[in-house]
């Protein structure tokens, strides 16, 4: 699925980067000793777990990824306020709905990221993915127009995700 060539030295470069950062995060420091340690773990752990690797994401457009992340964060905020209002408001006015979103994105990671985003953002929770990975079943807390919603979700999240992951 990911034909990109694999380095034996750094089998999971993205993870290595993540680990490097997380180590420094964990230790709240930029001391040289810890940077060395972080480098070590960033190298060693992926090496250790690479055998369990199922495919490695390649981020084609890092800046887009960053933008996407910020977008999602903003949406999370909004989503929360919306949900808060619904939760606190009169419940007999909400119209929950199940909908099926057709998926264009191909990779497992892509599907997962898309589903996760859906769950995190306004009033929707991913409930199920069809076996053929072509449909995402979503439960919406309040839904007036399913088609509008599907369209929006695909445009807002799936398209950039596809771009980022290049699939």
């Amino acid at each position, binding site marked *: 699925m990911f034909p990109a060539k694999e380095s034996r030295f750094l089998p999971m470069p993205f993870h290595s980067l993540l*680990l490097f950062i997380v180590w420094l995060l*964990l230790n709240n420091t930029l*001391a040289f000793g810890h940077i060395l340690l972080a480098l070590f*773990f960033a190298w060693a752990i992926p090496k250790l777990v690479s055998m*369990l690797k199922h495919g490695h994401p390649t981020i084609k457009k890092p800046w887009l990824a960053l933008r996407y992340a910020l977008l999602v964060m903003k949406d999370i905020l909004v989503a929360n306020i919306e949900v808060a209002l619904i939760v606190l408001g009169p419940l007999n006015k909400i119209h929950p709905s199940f909908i099926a979103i057709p998926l264009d994105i191909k990779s497992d990671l892509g*599907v*997962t990221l898309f589903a996760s985003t859906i769950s995190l953002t306004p009033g929707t929770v991913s409930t199920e993915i069809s076996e053929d990975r072509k449909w995402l079943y979503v439960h919406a807390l309040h839904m007036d127009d399913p088609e509008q919603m599907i369209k929006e979700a695909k445009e807002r999240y799936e398209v950039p995700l596809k771009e980022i992951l290049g699939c």
Partner: protein
Amino acid sequence: MLNDLIWIPLLPLLGTLVPLFASRFSRSACAFLTAALPALALVLVLQLAPQVFDGETIRQSFLWIPEMGLNLAFRLDGLALLFCLLILGIGLLVILYARYYLSEKDSIGKFYAYLILFMFAMVGIVTSDNMIQLWMFWELTSISSFLLISFWGHKSEARKGARMALTVTGAGGLALLAGVLLIGNIVGSFSLNDVLASGDLIRNHASYPVVLVLVLLGAFTKSAQFPFHFWLPHAMAAPTPVSAYLHSATMVKAGIFLMARMYPVLSGTELWFLIVSMTGLATLLLGAYVALFKHDLKGLLAYSTVSHLGLITLLLGMGTELAAVAALFHIINHATFKASLFMAAGIIDHESGSRDMRQLNGLWKYMPYTATLAMVAAAAMAGVPLLNGFLSKEMFFAETLHQDSLGSLSWMVPVFATIGAVFSVAYSLRFIHDVFFNGEPINLPKTPHEPPRYMRVPVEILVGLCLIVGIAPTFFIGDLLYSASAATLQGVVPEYSLAIWHGFNFPLLMSFIALAGGAIVYINRKELFQFQSQFPENDPKLVFEGIIQLIHRQISRLMELTENGSLQRYSYMMLSLAMVMMAGPLLDLNATEGHRPQIPIDAISITGAILLTVGALATVIWNRDRMVALVALSVVGLIVSLIFAKFSAPDLALTQLAVEVVTVILLMLALFFLPQRTPKESTPLRVVRDLVIAAIIGGVIGTICYALMTRPLESISAFFLENSKIGGGGTNVVNVILVDFRGFDTLGEITVLGIAALGIFKLIARMRLYMPASDDAGRPWSKDSHPLMLSVVSQSLLPLALLVSAYIFLRGHNMPGGGFIAGLVTSVAIIQQYIAHGVAWIKSRMKLDYQLMIGSGITIAALTGLGSWAFGRPFLTSWFDHFHLPLVGEFELASAMLFDLGVYLTVVGATMLILANLGKLTTSERPVLKEQN
């Protein structure tokens, strides 16, 4: 060197080994070799006899186990000499006799070994100079006689007879032990010399009656006194040489010997007289009467033995010195004639194939020589003049006349004695007449004939002894009897005469009454037999077995009631006991609350307490609905770790969290294979019962906990706080305690974990599990075995989790964390992979040998501890130092980290060995098996 007394028992002891080796030679050679050492012992005894006759008591002792009062001590006085001669002498004759008696099928080596062992035990008894040693040999006779009686163990009666003999004599032996120990306690020594000198001390001691009863129980059971006589006739299941030996000179005489031995210590009181003489009299009469009705030749002789033992006992019980002399005399006489009679009976049995006097008739024609011998011996038994039996019986009659302990009823003793003698004559007559005359044999398996020449020799010797002692008593046994009497009485030996003729006197009259009466009784036996046949015949063996089996059944029933195999009951008992043990002391506690200032209550704590309470109660209430119980349990686990966090125990909080999750996962794994629901089966009563005990224990524990917490504590912990950094090199004191101060505990702890994993692996091996194809509601399982989102996300989390565990591991020494928690985090991360991807997927990609991890984990931890040996320090002495590297700055290295690495490896290895293997079970097919519930 052979002059040492110890050789007398030692030679027979060595002799027991001889037949085991000699049995490969011919039977005669075997008999010869076997006889050699006992014969040597006999020579030794004879060689020492003159000294004894001179009134000397030869003693020899060695220290052995002074703590228990046991010394190896031997004495040879007159009494011991007398018995030694009987035991060794008759023993040698029995060896010779048995050579011919035993068939080719019987293992003669084994027989001789048992026999000599028995001889050794008997010699040991009579030569012991230490009470405990005496008892030791006493029990040894029980054991060796058991082996002899059960020699033909494939026969049911041999087994039963042997068991009965062992039980009765064993019981007596135990009583004797108690008596001996009491005597030792009173006297302050177990040396026979000291004991014999302490007669007055013992007789005046408050526990004299107890001592007397206990010792006599030993003697009576051994000597088959009423009411313990019943074992003896059933010991006849043994080969006849054994009977000849056991019932003439040895086994049964041990009891008599004991009474004679303890005579100076225990006799002379009213109680002694009452118990001993009455028992003897009863035994005398009972034995004589029953003997008459026995159709079995050996049965007759057995009951006759019982009767004669009663006679001797009666004599000893009378308490007069002359009676004691008479008793000793009769011991000799009985030994000779009874041994010869048993041997004769054996010859008859051997050559005719039967011992039933209803079949045996007119053997005179077939074996006149044997018949003559038997008749002479029987006459001695009957007390016919010119034979030895007559002499001692005369003395006995005389003594019955000279006692007055029964007051105005004293006349009864001679009367009963005469009645006993009448029956004695009658059964002797029956023995002679029924076997050798009285028509023709009926349906004998073999045509009887004379035995081999040398089989008769022992009988000839013994019968000869009966004759010569009967004719010239003083010449032959005067010295022996005198010195034996002196030893028995431990004082002045009274004047007595062994003359054959004492003139016409009462005893003589009694003898004649007995002879005449016996003849009359025998002639009129038909009426008597008819009379006797009205009584139901109880086979004591069956009665005895019946009683034992009854006891066995009752006890088994009782045990089934108590040990009913119900864990619930066992747990309940233990917890009840715990409750009582804990609650009891608390009743004395006046104020539960101490004076230590308490922490004020806050809302969060109350919230936590309520969550915990509801969670725990929910777990209990929904315990039958297992998933719900698990969720509720998780709440409890979570709150418990929050409690740890709140009260300043971050390490505990972390550990608790990790353990809780792994536990829940384990429980779910198990749940899959267990029934989903618990049937409601506890009765309300039981629920109430359990609730009550649970509530009380909970209350007690809570109370104790409160009492503890509200009191100040002075503990050793200040030391750890002070030394953690300077001595252990870490600031997280808890972790330093774990890996350093109390690293030994932790080593044990990871061992426990490793062992648990191995044990679980064993449990899983070959386990056949019923895998449900649907859940409790009957829904088939989902087809989606590895949900996409879960797999993808779990996979990305793995490196993160590993990093976190590395972080926790590395900082453990100084901050909350450490090898154990890190190990659990790693394990949980790997488990998550298993959950997300399944075993097969992981297995194909990851090759980790968990067993190796456990082994190396424990080894690393232990080796770290061992490292300090190189510096001459004790195990687990820690080492740490601070280093400085350019750019990196200062950092610390400590042996504790290596130790913690061992912990980490063991934890990961153990957890994964458990979970991964459990998972493997279920990769196979899912057979739908019927629930066996």
